[in-house]
């Protein structure tokens, strides 16, 4: 038998499927598509109050404006005014009451984008302001929650804390984060005959867009088709909130009987759609002389915004990640999703996990400060280990790659030598202080809710041997399409150029889950493999009949199909199957095995496996200005047997930098009236090429195939590396400690902006010598 294997299958660093078109500007996003005849352009009129009753809404001037074709409010919705992804009653358009600044109160369709935008300015609204709850603290005090509080418990935390040699209490907080996908939210809805609707939507969740559009239009799901070829970034922001934009476009299109494009301007996008949940955590912890955590009682509160949206599941994942890589023998974690009069926060890479993982680090550094130990020593002594390897929710962590990652990191990052250099530097430099931290993460893979862990794929083999591939996952730049194409190429043993990738559509794969929770390649890859295996078994039977032998002995390899010493090319066999009247089309289906979770008791094994990573991060601060730099980062990440090392390294680098933004510079500011003051890149700063670490080394953990039988033994990659960037905050905090001592450093909260660093240097007050000096001169 010929042992040729294909060169473009799994485990190869295949180039992104659209790369050649992206570099020529010919990969089409929705706004690039040729506009159909008669296309109308949408715009959204937003509330400018945080919480108010609408006394009068006068749209007559809007309706009369040049080019305006229709204006719709809540009363014009033919179906239910409900865009809730999980809970019912989350209105698409405000009806009498507005609950956040930036909430949609009316939608417009006009002949041109400029006409729609100009007409929106003519709206006249009279409001009666109502009391607004703007902060986590205010909502906690008023006990305003969007879902019932969650409690996770193991052992007796209160008793363990009371009996521990040491105990302390503390508090920390982390800010929210705008997704800032470069392509703002967009949809084009086109009415079809018989009341049907086709929607191009920049969405991670075509099925949910389908369901919500159907609900708004009072049509069955089957009457709505949603399609997405690619998104210009998403990061969770286009999971549930894409359906708002698509729903509005569909309503306008149905009303006008014309296709409608709704593309949000950046400002409207940032006002109307949700962000990462900001977080407040409070805790009491009992520990021994070595810093071992004996009991932990923690409260985590998230700012949910005005409705539940995905906040319940986000909170669940936050609670499931408080442990990170640490053994917590007695633990109680309570979670609160606070209802505030701010935009509904939503999914964002990590989905609550980063918030939980951030909170436990505040516990670690406080223990270290109290005992006079290094934070690294306290991290180390609390790591999961043999016999201490069960999470607070009762799942065994299985293979534990943390020790290996940290050991390899020591050499890769040259840690001992650099620590010495940093100590010398800090002793000699008057106003720059540096710090280096090592940090390990563990991230649970699977949707927390077991029923979401399912996927479908559709494969056609044509008689020339080319393959049409479709699955339920969406492409947002993460390389899912190319990974699944590599999987199909490997299954059929044909080069990937023969596998044709097609847009994700609800009429091809029904009832899908969002492309989220890092699960895209795990579940869609398995579904595609299942479809390929079905077709292969049919083709093998035909080959066996032709050559005389058993179908089980047929081998697909290097573009040929072999039985003993006889062979046939893949295209010829496809042609032969057709002639023999055998179907070359199949659907594949996958559901993740062995997972279960009881939401009431917050126990179970919700994750099929865990992904691990470790990094060494060096930061510097300027104690005069508070400015910070991340100087060097070394990462080793566990991707199992990577499906595509280049794509995975890109995910690690990009995820880390996005996390760096969350931890060090991206700051959402609301004023006292609940108005978001940072709704454009002029005031909301994401990392640029000058902000990222100039030395940035990323390695994949070698020879570490997934212990679980995942798709070709790979591991998920989307979210876990984001959490590594918590190390940026930890390194800056240690640098503050080097400058002003640990008590001052413990007052630092995220994001560690220059202002926050200056405040911390002054012990949490606006009290650093530098601040006082500036204040005296009234410089700010």
């Amino acid at each position, binding site marked *: 038998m010929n042992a040729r294997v294909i060169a473009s299958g799994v485990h190869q*660093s295949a*180039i*992104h499927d*659209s*790369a*050649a*078109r*992206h*570099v*020529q*500007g*010919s*990969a*089409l*996003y929705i*706004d*690039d598509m*040729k506009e159909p005849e008669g296309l109308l352009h949408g715009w959204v009129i937003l509330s400018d109050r945080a919480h108010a009753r609408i006394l009068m809404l006068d749209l007559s001037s809007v309706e009369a404006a040049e080019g305006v074709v229709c204006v719709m409010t809540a009363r014009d919705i033919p179906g239910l005014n409900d865009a809730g992804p999980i809970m019912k009653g989350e209105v698409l358009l405000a009806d009498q009451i507005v609950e956040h600044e930036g909430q949609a109160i009316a939608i417009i369709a006009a002949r041109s984008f*400029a006409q729609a935008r100009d007409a929106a300015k003519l709206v006249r609204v009279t409001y009666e302001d109502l009391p607004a709850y703007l902060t986590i603290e205010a909502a906690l005090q008023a006990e305003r929650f969007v879902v019932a509080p969650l409690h996770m418990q193991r052992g007796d935390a209160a008793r363990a804390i009371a009996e521990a040699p040491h105990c302390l209490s503390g508090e920390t907080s982390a800010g929210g984060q705008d*997704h*800032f*996908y*470069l*392509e*703002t939210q967009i949809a084009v809805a086109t009415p079809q005959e018989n009341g049907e609707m086709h929607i191009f939507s920049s969405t991670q969740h075509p099925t949910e867009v389908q369901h919500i559009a159907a609900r708004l239009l009072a049509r069955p799901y089957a009457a709505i088709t949603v399609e997405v070829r*690619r*998104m*210009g*970034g998403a*990061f969770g922001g286009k999971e549930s909130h894409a359906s708002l934009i698509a729903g509005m476009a569909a309503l306008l299109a149905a009303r006008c009987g014309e296709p409608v494009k709704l*593309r949000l*301007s*950046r400002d409207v996008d940032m006002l109307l759609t949700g962000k990462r949940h900001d977080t407040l955590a409070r805790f009491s912890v009992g520990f021994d002389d070595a810093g071992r955590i004996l009991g932990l009682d923690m409260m985590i509160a998230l700012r949910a915004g005005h409705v539940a949206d995905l906040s319940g599941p986000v909170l669940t994942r936050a609670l499931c990640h408080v442990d990170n890589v640490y053994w917590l023998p007695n633990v109680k974690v309570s979670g609160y999703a606070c209802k505030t009069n701010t935009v509904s926060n939503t999914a964002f890479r990590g989905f609550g996990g980063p918030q939980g993982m951030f909170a436990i680090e505040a516990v670690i550094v406080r223990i270290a400060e109290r005992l006079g130990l290094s934070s690294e020593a306290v991290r180390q002594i609390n790591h999961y280990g043999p016999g201490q390897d069960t999470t607070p929710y009762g799942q065994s962590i299985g293979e534990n790659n943390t020790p290996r990652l940290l050991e390899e990191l020591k050499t890769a990052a040259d840690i001992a030598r650099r620590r010495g250099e940093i100590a010398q530097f800090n002793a000699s430099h008057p106003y720059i202080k540096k710090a280096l931290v090592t940090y390990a993460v563990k991230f649970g893979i699977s949707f927390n809710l077991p029923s979401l862990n399912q996927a479908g794929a559709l494969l056609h083999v044509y008689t020339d041997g080319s393959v049409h591939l479709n699955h339920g996952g969406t492409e*947002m*730049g*993460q*390389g899912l399409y190319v990974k699944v194409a590599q999987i199909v190429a490997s299954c059929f043993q044909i080069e990937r150029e023969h596998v044709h990738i097609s847009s994700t559509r609800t009429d091809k794969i029904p009832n899908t889950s969002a492309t989220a929770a890092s699960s895209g390649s795990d579940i869609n890859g398995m579904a595609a493999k299942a479809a390929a295996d079905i077709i292969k078994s049919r083709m093998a039977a035909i080959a066996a009949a032709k050559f005389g032998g058993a179908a089980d002995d047929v081998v697909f390899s290097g573009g040929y199909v072999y039985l003993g010493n006889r062979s046939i090319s893949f295209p010829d066999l496809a042609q032969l199957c057709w002639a023999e009247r055998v179907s070359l089309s199949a659907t594949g289906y996958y559901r993740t095995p062995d997972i279960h979770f009881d939401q009431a008791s917050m126990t179970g094994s919700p994750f099929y496996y865990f992904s691990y990573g470790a990094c060494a991060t060096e930061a510097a601060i300027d104690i005069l200005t508070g400015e910070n730099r991340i100087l060097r980062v070394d990462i080793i990440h566990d991707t199992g047997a990577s499906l595509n090392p*280049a*794509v995975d*390294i*890109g995910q690690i*680098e*990009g*995820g*880390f*930098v*996005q996390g760096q933004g969350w931890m060090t510079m991206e700051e959402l500011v609301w004023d006292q009236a609940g108005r978001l003051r940072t709704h*454009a*890149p*002029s005031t909301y700063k*994401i*990392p*640029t*090429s*000058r902000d*990222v670490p*100039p030395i*940035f080394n*990323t390695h994949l953990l070698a020879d570490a195939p997934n212990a679980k039988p995942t798709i070709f033994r790979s591991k998920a990659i989307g979210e876990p590396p984001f959490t590594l960037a918590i190390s940026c905050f930890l390194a800056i905090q240690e640098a503050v400690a080097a400058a002003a001592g640990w008590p001052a450093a413990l007052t630092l909260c995220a994001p560690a902006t220059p202002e926050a660093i200056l405040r911390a240097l002054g012990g949490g007050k606006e009290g650093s010598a530098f601040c006082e000096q500036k204040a005296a001169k009234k410089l700010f």
Partner: protein
Amino acid sequence: MKKSPVSMTINGQPVEELVEPRTLLIHFLREQLNLTGAHIGCETSHCGACTIDLDGKSVKSCTIFTLQAEGAHIRTIEGMAAADGTLHALQEAFREKHGLQCGYCTPGMILRAWRLLQENPDPTDAEIRFGIAGNLCRCTGYQNIVAAIKHAAILMAGAQQKEAAE
């Protein structure tokens, strides 16, 4: 609104059109000429997704009126590849070195990188990072973008040497 005539050269081709005075260059390119490679990201000059090259400068086409480009020589991503479809060294390098993920920033990033390499054919990493800081990418963390630009600089220098030798 009354339209005014405007003429310019785009990717080597003369263009004569009528536009409303308020039409921004990005809308003229995308909607009137169907050159959709330059993207709209923020409409306020911050993100760089709309970057084009205009009379020897990188320009964010979302904050310039079309009429201001009267008589200008403009290059967009559609004009980077050779007439026979051969990719420019920068395009090849961004593709080969995985200098993109979602791709939305890519056309603007390549146009900016092209001007940078015209001004400084052999930039250091730090010079590249400084030179492209006006173009945001939310996906890659910039590592592979910097690598792609460095690689392109080498390819372009090699091509120039070859040309000189011939």
